[in-house]
């Protein structure tokens, strides 16, 4: 019994030792400016996520000791995560609300727009604001009323509390209960899947992601909004009506590694990555 006990004690000791070792190598930054190493977690907006992943890959290539984990979850989750320590850096595709802004610093990474998207096979290629509002209020329920096919419109709205939902409702000065929808979608990628699966659907989503998908040959069509074409140029010049900020949220007292990553993400070194996904870099 005693000998067994000793063996057990030894095993537990070894386990604890190795755990402590893990703890040391995690999170912190070792070495000087060129020797960055450690682990970073980014959480938040599914709009910011793809571009943040690209930036993270390039940052990892520059600093082989760094591992960056980029997770979705939505803007609110990203901001909350940066505050409660679940994320080293939060991602948001909306401005921070006043009650969210304490204890964190928001850095504008890029700008995006809100685009209305239909299937590429849909003959309708423009809708006025009045028509869009009527569609989302349930007053127009067939594409034939807006010079389309004689098919019922599948109106896709977004889950309550999402950045896109709030921006859409603000723009049309509607409230959530005014919307008569046939479907409610979550993440931006889900919108793409829903529209591809249903040629009679219309959805509002991240302009950058939709344009990126459309350029890669996905059967999506972006509609002009307020007679302004949904292009990068119109986002840059500021004439596109709905602009969405893409924000990195850094908690006060963040690690040097997190600060270094954010500094890199805001530098001109990644502008090509941001523009490659049809977003507009902040600088």
């Amino acid at each position, binding site marked *: *019994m005693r000998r*067994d006990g000793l063996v057990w004690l030894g095993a537990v000791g070894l386990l604890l030792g190795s755990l402590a070792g893990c703890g040391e190598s995690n999170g912190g930054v070792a070495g000087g400016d060129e020797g960055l190493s450690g682990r970073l977690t980014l959480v938040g907006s599914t709009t910011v996520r793809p571009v943040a992943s690209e930036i993270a890959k390039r940052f990892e290539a520059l600093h082989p000791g760094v591992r960056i984990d980029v997770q*979705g*979850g*939505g*803007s*609110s*989750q990203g901001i*909350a995560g940066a505050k409660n320590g679940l994320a080293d850096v939060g991602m948001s595709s909306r401005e921070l609300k006043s009650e969210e802004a304490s204890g964190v610093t928001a850095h504008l990474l890029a700008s995006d727009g809100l685009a209305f998207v239909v299937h590429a096979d849909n003959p309708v290629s423009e809708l006025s604001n009045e028509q869009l509002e009527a569609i989302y209020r349930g007053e127009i329920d067939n594409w034939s009323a807006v010079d389309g096919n004689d*098919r*019922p419109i*599948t109106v896709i709205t977004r*889950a*309550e*509390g*999402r950045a896109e939902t709030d921006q859409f409702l603000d723009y049309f000065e509607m*409230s*959530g*209960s005014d919307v008569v*929808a*046939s*479907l*409610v*979608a*979550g993440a931006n990628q*889900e919108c793409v*899947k*829903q529209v591809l*699966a*249903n040629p*009679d*659907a219309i959805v509002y989503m991240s302009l950058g992601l939709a344009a990126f998908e459309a350029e890669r040959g996905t059967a999506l069509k972006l509609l002009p909004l307020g007679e302004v074409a949904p292009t990068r140029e119109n986002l840059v010049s500021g004439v596109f009506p709905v602009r969405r900020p893409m924000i990195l949220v850094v908690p006060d007292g963040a690690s040097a590694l997190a600060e270094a990553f954010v500094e890199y993400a805001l530098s001109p070194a990644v502008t090509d990555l941001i523009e490659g996904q049809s977003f507009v870099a902040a600088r």
Partner: protein
Amino acid sequence: MSPRVNDTVLTAGLWLGAGASGSVVLLIGGFLVWEAWPAFGEIGFAGFVRDASWHPSEGRFNVVPMVMASLLAMGGALLLAGPLGLLVAVFCGWYAPRPVAVVTRRVLELLAGVPSVVYGFWGLVTLVPLLGRWRPPGASLLAGTLILAVMVLPTVALLSEAALRQVPGAQVRGAAALGLRRWAVLWRVVIPGARGGIATASLLAAGRAIGETMAVLMVCGNVVQLPGFDSGGPFAPVRTLTANIALEMGYAFGAHRSALFVTGLMLLAVVVGLVGVASRFGSPRPRKWVRQGVAVG
């Protein structure tokens, strides 16, 4: 190590293991109540059943349409998968040639192992457009019910077959010796004998159906409404309790977040109810049958 010490250590370990697994459930329940409590204070229980709609940002928290959607999707799936599963079980155990039965069983086991997101994806790209061509938008209670039926079919079939096999051979041989035909033996002796096991199989399937999230999230459309006749009946899009949590948890805070924990609590209550009924149905009967079987055999 003396055998007595060994035994003490083992017993302590078993107590510890069982206690830990048991307390996890209690901890989850406690956590849900803790997180849901503010919502009960702020909104009150009446708000969850009497508000005009589910629009948390406008302070409306009616969950009844989602409870109904969950129950209807589950009930519909059981109605489809239950009889079909029993037929498959009877076929495998009694009518199929041995190789066919083995292959069928393997296919069912495979079906049980397919991740739910795969069913959901298949539903989204195949089933929903198919239904949509007939009755738009396609994503609907019916689509969810069909996907769930496919998902729980292996549970019903495999567990029912196990229940049929547990009916003592002595009874079967006895019935055959009385000159009953195969169908009569099945209908009068085997299926009544396995009733408890079949009921348990259905209730476990019900538990799986009501807890399923990913697949229903992808095919049900997620509009919060009662699937009434004016909105298209089974062709109306609906949102289940599980889909509601998955869809809104990332973006909810304050009373909204707390209200989502209330929906989680409701789900837990339904599952506890199902397990309770299952254990009432399940245990006493088969034991009696087995004992009699041993006595006769």
